[in-house]
């Protein structure tokens, strides 16, 4: 059952990226062009997502366990360190260069866009390098 949930969650998320147009890098770059021609839409996407998720997180956290899994499984890392800042800065630079972040980049594979596929392959190489060098801040 949890396999189906994973698939369906991905589908819903992907549809949200399409409706919000965040799948379009031009839209994302518009948000980052604060000092030029600014498109505030991305902020509204985040507000929309947080309006739903934030209260629900706080309700669900009181549940003993998730419906289709043994236990809740998420990182409760509270470390604010150099890795967090440097990693976020590198991500921000890459995000500003291409207008793509992981979700929209993977979703846009659906359109067979060769540019976004090149981005995704390169992104996975980045993931792999961090794994091999054991540089991740998560665990």
């Amino acid at each position, binding site marked *: 059952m949890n*396999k189906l*949930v*994973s*698939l369906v*969650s*991905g589908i819903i*998320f992907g549809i*949200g*990226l*399409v*409706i*919000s*147009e*965040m799948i379009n890098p*031009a839209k994302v*770059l518009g948000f*980052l062009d*604060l000092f030029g021609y600014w*498109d505030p839409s991305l902020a509204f*996407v985040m507000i*929309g997502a947080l*309006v739903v*998720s934030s209260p*629900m997180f706080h309700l669900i956290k009181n*549940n003993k366990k*998730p419906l289709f*899994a*043994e236990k*809740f*499984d*998420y990182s409760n*890392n*509270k470390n604010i360190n150099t890795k*967090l*800042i440097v*990693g*976020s*800065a590198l*991500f*921000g*630079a*890459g*995000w*500003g*260069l291409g*207008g793509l*972040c*992981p979700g929209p980049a*993977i979703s846009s594979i*659906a*359109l067979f866009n060769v540019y976004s596929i*090149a981005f995704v392959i*390169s*992104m996975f190489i980045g993931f*792999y*390098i*961090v*794994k091999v060098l054991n*540089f991740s801040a*998560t665990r």
Partner: protein
Amino acid sequence: MNIINFTPVSAFTGGVIIGLAVVVFFLLNGRLVGISGIASNALTEKNNRFDNFLFLVGLIIGPILYTLFTSKQISVTISSSYTLLIIAGLLVGLGTRISGGCTSGHGISGIGRFSLRSIIATITFMIVGIITVFVKNLI
């Protein structure tokens, strides 16, 4: 600053749908959505590998289903060169794993739980993204 292309209604609606996907995944499977983590773990970790893979498949199927049911075209405009996108992809891959999250993991799941760490990460990647676009426009 000039505001253009602002689409608050579709942005908010899409955001709510993204929030819904995050809530479904948390309530049923007990995990928080962070696409960079899901994608990276699908590549490098045995644990939950098939779940992670299915979520990514869902991300790709979402836009396809949307097009099938609405027969609307999805526009994805990428104006960067291959070289720039490959550099961007590498930076996004490295940065999100070093900092442990991207726009979804830190920006939605993290901020939704009022995690200070994620708030700092989100502010950092947004500021650096804005600076990157500003500098890119100067060149």
